[in-house]
């Protein structure tokens, strides 16, 4: 026993800081790199997300090229290029070679990326599986910079291998990333192609050219307008957690508490701020002097004061028309309907739900409906059954809208269900960003949107079924007409042909529907 004892001092010698990069190197599944198939999709997703965000912010209609080519056993070269505003020379190494570095983490605004992990995480994965450096080429319209870089994992810092500068006579601007990584290429429901297809559905203003192992696919632009740029907002106090509140108190420029509450949050006016302080039994002192107990009282008090919901101009929904256009372009169906709900709030975060339905056409009629899930226009391909979208869809009674459905299952039929969750903050169930958490407010909004779209679809489905039934009915009568004529001829000696003629006349004229209905005669009972 004694020889194995380790003293606290010895233990302390072994303790050291872990860098973010080192952490994710060991826990790459948290970033979506748990298996070779998914890893390949994740790399493309990170690149395309960045390209769409960058072009949107730059007010440029996106032209995105993605190339995936096999270069060895389970090894692929991936190239992604956009026509965005580019990244300036000095920021290239940090933006691509350091995790948790970026422009999106410290603001509250609807965008695809949020944390500054995505693309540098992809480069980290590439380096981890192949040992090779990545090449980032960027231009803002002036000269072109090509940087070969690696990530120093222990320090979470970029290592520049080489840096070239070239002339740019064509005034190209944008970013091009090239890397090699381990992966496995498949086609089907969870694949690069499906990811890009769904991306095209949700972003019909983007043109995406994909050059994959089995050939080229072009997803055309069908809308020539960019979505409205969402505005940045201050956090709404209802959604602020205690730890964040304390950090904000420490960092604020405000000189007193009323100033802090009214400037750092949205929807807090002077009287609301004073009410909070009163409830928390706090003086209007310096925010930096607030101690832990006081912060806790304030955090509780905030929830008790009635506040207006957060502003919603930070949201950029796709809109019903765009959803329909996007679906029409990539889904071979006969009927499309979309519903955009008014904005709502969960935990102080504004969000908006949109639903699109595509029905019939070439969609398979004998299998379950397909669910297209989007968070801020980004397709979610994995962990469908953990996602709020799935829960809301399964909880909706689709039998009301003319579909069969077993309990706990998606409806059956030729149906694609699209659900878009737009928010300044998407509550993913994990770092892999594949499933939306099931807050009751979110489920409720999703169900309302599904129900409204379902109602509209059911009108169409019912009319279609009616037409089909009418046809079946006509066919049925057509079969029995000669039979009746034959029997009547035997009974009355009237000519068969004449009887048929008379009956056909009635068919042409149309029969009152209440007489042709489905009502059955009561069956004879007993003997």
């Amino acid at each position, binding site marked *: 026993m004694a020889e194995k004892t380790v003293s606290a001092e010895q233990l302390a010698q072994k303790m050291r800081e872990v860098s973010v990069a080192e952490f994710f190197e060991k826990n790459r599944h948290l970033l979506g790199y748990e298996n070779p198939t998914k890893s390949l999709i994740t790399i493309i997703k990170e690149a395309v997300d960045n390209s769409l965000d960058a072009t949107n912010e730059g007010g440029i209609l996106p032209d995105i090229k993605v190339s995936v080519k096999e270069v060895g056993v389970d090894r692929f070269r991936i190239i992604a290029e956009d026509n965005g505003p580019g990244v300036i020379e000095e920021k290239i190494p940090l933006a691509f070679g350091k995790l948790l570095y970026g422009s999106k983490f410290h603001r509250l605004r609807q965008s695809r990326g949020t944390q500054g992990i995505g693309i540098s995480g992809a480069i980290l994965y590439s380096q981890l599986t192949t040992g090779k450096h990545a090449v980032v080429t960027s231009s803002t319209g002036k000269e072109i910079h090509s940087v070969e870089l690696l990530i120093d994992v222990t320090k979470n810092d970029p290592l520049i291998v080489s840096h070239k500068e070239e002339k740019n006579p064509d005034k190209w601007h944008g970013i091009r990333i090239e890397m090699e990584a381990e992966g496995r290429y498949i086609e089907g429901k969870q694949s690069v192609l499906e990811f890009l297809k769904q991306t095209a559905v949700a972003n019909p203003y983007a043109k995406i050219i994909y050059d994959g192992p089995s050939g080229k696919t072009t997803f055309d632009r069908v809308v020539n307008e960019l979505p409205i740029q969402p505005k940045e907002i201050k956090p709404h106090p209802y959604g602020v957690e205690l730890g964040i509140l304390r950090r904000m108190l420490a960092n604020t420029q405000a000189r007193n508490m009323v100033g802090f509450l009214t400037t750092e949050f949205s929807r807090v006016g002077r009287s609301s701020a004073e009410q909070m302080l009163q409830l928390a039994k706090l003086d209007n002192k310096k925010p930096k002097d607030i101690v832990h107990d006081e912060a806790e009282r304030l955090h509780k008090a905030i929830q008790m004061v009635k506040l207006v919901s957060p502003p919603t101009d930070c949201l950029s929904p796709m809109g019903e028309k765009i959803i329909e256009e996007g679906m029409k372009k990539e889904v071979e169906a006969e009927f499309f309907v979309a519903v955009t709900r008014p904005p709502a709030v969960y935990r102080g975060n504004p969000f908006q739900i949109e639903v699109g339905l595509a029905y019939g056409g070439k969609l398979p009629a004998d299998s379950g409906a397909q669910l297209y899930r989007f968070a801020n226009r980004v397709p979610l391909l994995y962990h469908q059954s953990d996602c709020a979208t799935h829960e809301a869809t399964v909880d909706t009674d689709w039998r009301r809208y003319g579909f069969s459905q077993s309990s706990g299952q998606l409806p059956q039929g030729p149906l694609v269900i699209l659900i878009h969750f737009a928010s300044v903050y998407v509550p993913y169930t994990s770092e892999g960003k594949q499933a939306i958490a099931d807050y009751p407010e979110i489920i409720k909004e999703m169900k309302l949107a599904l129900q409204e779209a379902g109602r509209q679809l059911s009108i169409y489905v019912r009319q279609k079924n009616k037409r089909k039934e009418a046809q079946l009915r006509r066919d049925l009568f057509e079969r*029995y007409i000669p039979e*009746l004529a034959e*029997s009547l001829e*035997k009974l009355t000696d009237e000519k068969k042909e004449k*009887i048929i003629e008379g009956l056909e006349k009635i068919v042409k004229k149309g029969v009152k529907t209440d007489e042709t209905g489905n009502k059955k*005669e009561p069956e004879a009972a007993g*003997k």
Partner: protein
Amino acid sequence: MLRLTKQETKKNLKQLGSNVLDQIKHEKNPALDVPIRTLSNVKYDPKSKMITMGEGLAKRYFFNIGHVRKFVQTIEAAAVAKELIDVGKHLSLRETFYRMKRTLPNSNINLVDEQEESNAAIEDLELITDASRELLHINANKLGSVAGKVVIEDKGDTIDWSKLGSGGWAIPSNVEDIIFKKVDAKFVIYLEKAAEWERLHEDRVWEKLNCIIISSQGQATRGIRRLLQRLHMEYKLPVYILVDGDPWGAYIYSVIKYGSISLAHISQELAIPGAKMLGLTAEDVVKYGLQKHLIKFEEVDVKRLEQVKNYDWFKDHKEWQKQFKLWKELNGKVELAALSSKGITFISDKYIPDKIKNKEWLD
């Protein structure tokens, strides 16, 4: 129902056809008025002690996906009947089914798929034309036997019911044209089971008790019921009924006595309100110690018991309600055959004579 002549029957059949033709000429959705043959459209008349048919009519349309099949079946049944009358031949229900059966062009649909369908079409046709099945030249199978000191004439042949060996005379579906030459009997015994009839016949009960014995196998057919009724009406013979002790037996008894639900329109020609039930009663079980022969009720038996108990003709009948209550307590049924446990000829020598002598019956 009136007894139609052959000419009237033919006229009514043609009338049915020309009605449909008229509607077609006027470009109307052809419709037939079919009296409804369900419990909802029958009434029990306590005065006449008969089940009678209500006024309820159902419209049966040709241009109605739920009706079209039955509509054509009814017209086809009429066409077959007219043909039979024209050529002076008869068909059985089974043969009529094949006569009506044909496949619709460009389909795998048959005009009739099962005999039940053609049977129902014929029953509807009887109601529409006021002509019974026999008048339409369609016969049911012979079913049931009879024996007794009776001489009849059928189609010119003279038949003595006491001289037909072990089988007795098989009762045809149409007994309308039978002429009774001699009837030497004091009453009639009807038995639900052919096996018990054979027991009584072997024991020559008809001779010993001077009666007529008639059986069916299960529910009594129209021919048997009409024969019972004629003997009861024309010769004033009491009719005694022997059925198994269970709700099904109770219903067989009530059909003979009051009429049936599906043939309520011809109760007048079939019902025998004076018929009495000898057994098996619930009291018999106790009196003759048959408890150990009880066959435990299954769910369907219990359900049927509740149903029968609530029929109008039983509902206010105190003695029958007592029976149903006792059967429910016994929670089992007893077959007539169980009486043989008391002795081979117990039913013939003891059970029946005692019951009749002591007037131990349910009315």
